[in-house]
Structures are given as C-alpha cells and as structure tokens.
C-alpha cells in the first residue's frame, strides 16, 4: 500500500520533472548557440533568449500598449462569443427536433478562416464610427466572437441535453417551471461543459485576435507587430513579440484552469 502510494507520487512528480528537464536542456542549448548549429540557422534568424529578453526589457511601454489591444479584443470577443454560443445552445435544447441540426450548422462557422472573416468585418464596420480606434477594435472583436460561438454552442448543447436519467421527469413531477428547470438542473449540469468549451475557445480567441490584427485598419497589437517586424527583417524583435504572445496564452490558460478548479471544487462539495 505504502509502496503503491510512493509509486503514484513519483509518477505525478515525474510527469512534471521530465518535461521541465527537457525545457531546461532546450533553453541552455538555445542560449549556448547549440540550437542554431543543430537547426542550421544563424543568430539573426534565431536570436538567443538573452537578446530577446533585452528587447522586451527595452520596450516595456510599447509592448504593454500592444498587449492591451490584443487582450481586450481576445477577451471581449471570447465573452460575447461564448454568451451567444450558450444562447444558441439553450434555444437548440428547447427545440430539439431541429436543434441538433442547427448546432451542426452553427459549428460550420468555425470552418470560415479568420483570413477571410477579417476583411469582411473591416468593411462591415467601416461606417459605424469615425474613430479608427473604435471601429478597428470592433471589427477585430467581431471576428474573435464568431470564432468562439461554435465551440460554446456545441459543448453547452451537450451540457443542456445530456442529463441524468429521469432528472427532467423528476423536475416535472415537482411541477417546476421552465426557468426553475433551467436554474436548478440545466445550468449546473452544463457548467463542466462550459469549461470544456472555454478551454478550446480561449487559445482560439488569442490566435484569432493575433491574426485579425494583420488586416486591421489601425496598426496595433502583438500579432501586427510580429508581422511588421518579420516583413522588415527584424527577426529578433519579432521573436520578442512571439514570446509575449506565448506568455499571454499560457497565463490566460492557467488562470482559466484555476477558476475551473475552484468552481468545480465548490460544486462537488455541495
């Protein structure tokens, strides 16, 4: 028993240690220039981590400005996309006859490439405001929103329909109204599915925010900086923005996992 426990803890520990060692080895090879030799690239195409770090440190204010623009677009788009997706799921769950088909149709939106959506949204929002800052933000947010709808509607639909056997009948015997059924049964049942959707949508929202910035009227955002710097052959600076976008994705994902673990823990306690 004791031995088994020991084994278990070593297993969970090793699942962290091995990737960590691998990461450290890659990092040391990168900084030491060995990675450049292995990949046949020079320090211009793949600059050392210390050089990238010094560029980040030198440009904190500018990076923050661009980061802010990207984060707002990604999170606001994610929020509204998820709300709309959940709304679609509720409607589809109410009218199940065509609901499942409708959900499939909605998920087809996911197949529309961002590269195609972005210019369309730019044109649609052109006459909405005379402020470039506002309308380019709106166009970008709309793209992210559309990308986030499908994941949420598909998952939430499952959360709203895959119930415990007879639980709906039980609610009926209590003579519960539609709203009560939703509040007491459907909503709590769908929470784990909502988090599943968010875990898919969050990285998606960041990627679509980065890409849609390529086409935006206003020159701002982490994605746009990556493009500008690569085209003008400033690879070290481009790498700095790539690192920032990776950190952004990781930080937001970890935050989401933390929120999920807190929410799910409280639910299980009940």
């Amino acid at each position, binding site marked *: 028993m004791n031995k088994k426990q020991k084994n278990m803890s070593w297993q969970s520990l090793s699942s962290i240690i091995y990737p960590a060692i691998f990461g450290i080895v890659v990092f040391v090879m990168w900084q030491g220039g060995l990675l450049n030799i292995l990949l046949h690239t020079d320090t*211009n*195409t793949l600059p050392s981590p210390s*050089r990238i770090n*010094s*560029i980040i440190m*030198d*440009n904190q204010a*500018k990076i923050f400005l661009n980061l802010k623009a990207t984060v707002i677009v990604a999170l606001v788009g994610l929020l509204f996309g998820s709300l709309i997706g959940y709304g679609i799921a509720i409607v589809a769950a109410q009218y199940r006859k065509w609901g499942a088909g409708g959900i499939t149709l909605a998920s087809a939106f996911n197949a529309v490439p961002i590269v195609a959506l972005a*210019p369309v949204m*730019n*044109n649609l929002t*052109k*006459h909405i405001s005379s402020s*470039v800052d506002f309308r380019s933000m709106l166009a970008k947010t709309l793209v992210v929103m559309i990308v986030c709808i499908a994941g949420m509607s598909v998952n939430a639909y499952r959360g709203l329909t895959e119930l415990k056997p007879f639980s709906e009948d039980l609610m009926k015997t209590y003579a519960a109204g539609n709203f009560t059924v939703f509040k007491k049964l459907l909503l709590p049942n769908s929470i784990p599915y909502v988090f599943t959707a968010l875990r898919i949508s969050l990285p998606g929202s960041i990627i679509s925010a980065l890409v849609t910035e390529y*086409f*935006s*009227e*206003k*020159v701002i955002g982490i994605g746009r900086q990556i*493009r*500008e*710097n*690569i*085209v*003008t*052959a*400033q*690879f*070290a*600076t481009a790498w*700095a923005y790539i690192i920032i976008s990776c950190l952004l994705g990781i930080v937001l994902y970890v935050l989401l996992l933390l929120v999920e673990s807190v929410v799910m823990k409280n639910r299980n306690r009940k």
Partner: protein
Amino acid sequence: MKMEIKNIKKATFMVLVATAMLSFSACNKDSGTTETAAEEVKATAATSVVKTDKDRILEASAAGKIGNWGLGNEYEILALLAKYDQPLEFLSQDFTMDGFDDDSIALASAMTYNELGLVKNDYDGAYGYGDEVGTIDMNDEGVAMLEDNLFTTAEFAKANPNTVKAFVYATLKGWEDATADPEAAAEVVYKYGSSVSSEHQLYMASEVKKLVETDTEGNPVSNYGYMDEEAMQQTLDLAKTYIKLDDSQAASKLASLTLDDVRDTSYWEAATASEDGSDLGTPETTDVKVQLKWLPQSQFMGYYMALDKGYYSDLGLNVTIVPGGGDIAETTAVYNGTVDFGVTWVSNMISANAAGMGLLEVAQIYQRSGLLLVYKK
C-alpha cells in the same frame, strides 16, 4: 387547407425578410446621399478658395484619413507628415483601393504604375475616376526615397563577381528593350504569368518606363541602373530618421550605416563599360534565381524581357524569376540563400542591413519615387 396556411405563413415570412433587407439597403443609401449632399455644400464653398496640397495633407491628417500599406512602405509618408508638423500616424491600407473609393481614406497611397491606374482608368477591375482625382508626388515634396533596385548579399558578390556583372549586364539590356517598347514588354510579362489584366499591364509598363528614365528632379536619365549619390544619400538619411527599430542593437547599427554598407557601384560600372558582355569573365555560378518584390507584372518587365530575349542565357546564366507577393520578404529570401538576387526598395534593404543581413545593392533600376498620395478633387 392545411397546405394553404403553410404557404401563407411562408409568404408572410418571405415578405418580412424582404422588407427587412429593403429597409436596410435604404438606410445605407440614405446615409450615402446625405454624405454626397454635404460634400456638394463643401465643394461649392471651396470653389472660391483654391485648396493647396498642404491644405489637403493637414485636413486629411486631422481627420486621421491618410492611408498607407505599412510593412516598410510607409517611410516617405512619415517624412511627408513630419515636413508639415503632423503626427506620424496613418491608416493601414489593404491591397485594394476600396478604402479610397468609399471615402474612409481621403489621401490614399498609390504607386504611379499600379494603384493610380486602378483609380483613374476604367478597364475591368479599375474604379474609373479619370480626371476627378489629383495626386501629391513624393519627388515634388522632397521626401522621395528610391524604390525597386537589384541586390544580392555582399558575400555572394564577393564569391561570384563575374556572375553579378553578367546578371547586371543582361538585366540592364532587358530594361533597355522594355523601355524602348513598353507594349511588347507588357505582352511578354503577360505571357509569363500575370496577376492583372493585359490593359493594366500595358498601363503599368508605360508608367514604369517613366520611373526608370527620370530622376527625382524630373531630369531624364539615360544610363539605366545608375546609383545616384545624392538620391541614395537622401534615401539613407530619411531611412535613418523614419525607420524605428525596437531592437537597440539593430537601431545603433542603422544609425552607423553609410552608403558603402548599402551599395557597391563597381559591378554596375563593369557591366556598363562592357562592349557586349562577353568580356565580363566566366560566371562562377550559372544557375541563379531572382526574387521579385511582388507578383509578376510590368513593374519587373526588364527581367522578363531579358529572360524572354535570351540575354541571360547568352552570357551562360540559367535564370529563374521567382515572383513575390503577400508577406514574402525578398530581403530574407536573398539573405538565407533561397535566391541569389532580389528586387526591393532601398529602405527595406537598409532595415535588413540594420538587422545584420549584409545585403548589397548592385544596380538602382527606378531612378525616382513612384509613390503618390491620391485624393478626390
């Protein structure tokens, strides 16, 4: 009976959709007519006072309606804005002129040989504005930077001097032919895979001819590919002022660059001194590729002409022309050895050299800036 009810329902639904669509389009039209009405009022008020280019720049800058593509194409516009003490900001323009057409951009960037033709002419895919548009020329404004050149890496040039000389010789011969007969050149380009219509290709050829044969002051140039010291120096000076690099290492390299780090005239001198190219020595490398800055079009007619007439093969060179477009960075392609030669704007080569790419211009094909700001009169 049941069928009828269903049909009625269907019909009412369709009517509803139709009215919604109609009212939506009507709304759009309404806003359009009020805008044009306002413009008419403005126009009648302005007839008594003649607007200068400066007025137009100040007005468009205040409204935030000056457009450029960015991505290293914006330095002349920034220099122009600085000249008139305006904030160095511009709208990101896409690769169409729709923004200019729908008035979201008042002063739009346009190349004489491409976008200006699309705005003015009325062939397929163009906007047909004719003489209703005016232009502000970067050469006249004194902020011209040199554009399409021919470059390689300093390393390649040093290892293959004869190849470089032969390539320059044949290329210049191609440009000579192309400018002598733009119509034939346009046809040749069209044959090699064109991104635009044949009419536009012809328009482009006639405009490119002007850029190749006229300097920034408007004087005729007869020695093709000449690297004019003064124009090159102005390009370098403006580049140093308006290329902003976040990488401090590259920024200090940029500040220290001189013309000698950017161009070498010796290959051009040897090529132009040659009688018929046969005295340039045996090429060290015979299979060479040249990377264009954009899609196949008359902008690069000299290269296609040289290829088509066999000027490259006459000197023992087997040349492949690689079209660019989108986000292909010709500087990077030459630097990493994917191709041997490239066509780019001098400013783009300067920023690449600031990053340590060691690129070297061997000929300057365009003698003046082809960038304009176009406005509706």
